[in-house]
């Protein structure tokens, strides 16, 4: 009897050990839990954060309706970091505690950087997409992948288009007003590269603190320098604030912006200025053929007011989620973090339903969708159209 009891205990121990070794955090027979960290309570970027969540939600709903990932329902847990790197780390720790398997978004800019040590140590499969941050994937980190062109490439593409098509015989003179952080630094890199590559005349770069409202002094300096191409290096409301001042001084200006320039509130704020301006992107614009499938799915799974709030950030989040779900699906029933990372790096092509070109990573290149197109936005009508094909810079 004693022997039997010992054997039973041993068997129970072995089975417990085996279960512990095989079960991956965040994966059960019925569910897979993904995490999302976005700045939900940051005054400037909160709306973008919700747009990201809408994109993830549509992808998960679409996938769940098809039966989930090999029969497991996709669950997404959202956390707020208020755009503060310290909070991003805390949010990630919370999500890990809550049993998240992989990350669909890990904040923006410095927030991504702050989470890298933990993501690497725990080998958590992660898709960086909200705000491209090159050090996340360069040098390559086994579990971290990124989609999206850098701000440098996006803006460089716009300037190239402007210089080649919009100067009407005038001599181009370029200026930049940029935020004084890592984002702004990338913006200035595009400016420096354009000067070098096209031999442009330029005005000295100007910087501002995040959240600045008035750009009268900066625009006056640009006007005095004779600038006719301006890189408006703000994230959201700073862009129309600069354009408003430029319109006041009746400047003949071509304006290049980062992808936030396409957001509906920014386009509306730009309306009184009358400028036709440019933005760059690596996803098909909303309303275009490439975004048709996504928009149909959004209409199906989101509420009416949520559909109205969609933007290109919803598209990037949708694409990133689809890539992650496909890699998970490819792992079959034995879903592990190592397997997802391996599948993502395998060179296999992942479909994003037209939002981007098919995406593929490799063992030594964890960044994709770097080709950019230029979008022209008419602020008077609010209409935007892609004026170039996707190109690599």
């Amino acid at each position, binding site marked *: 009897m004693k022997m039997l009891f010992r054997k039973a205990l041993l068997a129970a121990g072995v089975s417990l050990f085996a279960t512990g070794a095989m079960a991956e955090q965040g994966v059960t027979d019925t569910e897979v839990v993904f995490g999302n960290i976005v700045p939900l309570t940051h005054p400037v970027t909160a709306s973008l954060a919700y747009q990201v969540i809408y994109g993830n939600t549509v992808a998960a709903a679409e996938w769940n309706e098809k039966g989930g990932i090999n029969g497991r329902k996709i669950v997404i847990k959202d956390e707020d970091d208020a755009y503060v790197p310290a909070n991003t780390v805390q949010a990630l720790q919370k999500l890990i505690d809550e049993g998240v398997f992989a990350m669909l978004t890990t904040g923006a800019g410095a927030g991504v950087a702050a989470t890298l040590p933990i993501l690497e140590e725990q080998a958590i499969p992660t898709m960086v997409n909200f705000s491209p941050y090159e050090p996340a994937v360069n040098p390559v980190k086994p579990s971290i992948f990124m989609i999206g062109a850098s701000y440098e490439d996006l803006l460089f593409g716009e300037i190239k288009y402007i210089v080649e098509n919009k100067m009407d015989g005038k001599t181009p003179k370029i200026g930049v007003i940029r935020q004084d952080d*890592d984002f702004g630094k990338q913006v200035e890199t595009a400016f420096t590269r354009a000067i070098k590559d096209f031999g442009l005349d330029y005005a000295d770069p100007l910087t501002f603190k995040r959240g600045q409202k008035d750009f009268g002094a900066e625009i006056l300096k640009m006007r005095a320098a004779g600038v006719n191409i301006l890189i408006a290096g703000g994230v959201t409301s700073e862009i129309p604030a600069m354009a408003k001042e430029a319109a006041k001084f009746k400047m003949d200006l071509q304006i290049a912006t980062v992808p936030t320039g396409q957001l509906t509130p920014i386009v509306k704020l730009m309306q009184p200025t009358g400028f036709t301006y440019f933005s760059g992107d690596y996803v098909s614009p909303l309303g275009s053929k490439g975004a048709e499938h996504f928009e149909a799915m959004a209409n199906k799974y989101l509420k009416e007011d949520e559909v109205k709030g969609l933007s290109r950030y919803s598209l990037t989040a949708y694409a990133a989620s689809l890539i992650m779900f496909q890699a998970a699906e490819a792992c079959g029933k034995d879903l592990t973090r190592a397997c997802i990372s391996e599948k993502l790096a395998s060179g296999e092509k992942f479909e994003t339903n037209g939002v981007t070109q098919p995406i593929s990573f490799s063992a030594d290149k964890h960044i994709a969708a770097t080709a950019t197109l230029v979008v022209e936005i008419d602020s008077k009508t609010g209409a935007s159209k892609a004026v170039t094909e996707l190109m690599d810079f």
Partner: protein
Amino acid sequence: MRTGNHIESYPRHISLSDNPVVWFWLVALMAAMIVLPAFSGLFVLGLAIRILIAAVGAIGLNLLTGSTGQISLGQSGFLAAGCYTTGLLIADYNWPPELALPMSGIVAAALSFLVGIPSLRLKGLYLAITTLAFSFIITQFLLFAEPITHGPYGVRIEDTVLFGFDLADPTTMYYFCLGILVLVTLGVLNIMRTRVGRAFNAIRDQDIAARAMGINLTTYKLTAFAASSFIVGLAGGLMAFQFRFINVDIFSVTLAIEALAMIIVGGLGSVAGAIIGAAFIILLPEFVGDAIGLLPAGISDVLARGALEIKGLLIGLVIILTLRLEPDGLIGVWRNLKRYWSRWPLSV
């Protein structure tokens, strides 16, 4: 039954506590803190580390503002200086973390003379503005001196092994921070029992009278600035190990306001108050978040979007209520409760 305090000797007067019950509860609290990692996940441990580091910083600020009466809004500057010193020495100059951490305090203390000397003739609001300007100078320097500080790109710290213990492990980091907090607490409590501590209090209460009694204001004010900044810088150094990626965004002006809120809400001039205040201010948004989650769906959705503003409002509200209702802060509430309990039924 204990009914009050009758202190008969000077050593007893300056002892940390003459009450065995206090020692018992302190030991119990330490025991609880030692076993905490065994029962908590990564998030709770992360939160606990934040509280411990904030408590170290708050004790440092309290030494200057609470005990010496020198209002400082420049704490985020000293914190940043300490944090970047440790981070850069490890990342760029390959210093061993064992030396890089104390350097965070030394550099912050050295920088404090830059503010301390011109501030000797300033008081109150003027001093507050001067220290605030200092923190702006520090953050602007960190942002624009890119060849030295990595500018907006921040610094990543890879080597986190101190005396054979890897601080990248949250449990190790927790115990390390707890150890530092205990050392800083004992150090400051001891300073406050000496002539130096009494001189700080005299300067706070009436600096002209203090000078008349032979206290050298220049020496003691600078000592307060240096000691306070050393501790705050050390807290900054700990932050470098906590995040392992540092960036100037961490050191906003809000951080200085929060630090001030910690010592006001906890109780100005009290070391225990600074620790309680730090825990309260760090945990406040978590409680608010949980409370919002309990509200009906429609209301909680709206409030969740404004959580940052609500946190700011609540910190402001708590400071106003503390100053209006209990100027001695949470530690004052605790003392009143203790007095009421120990003197019951004669308490009023």
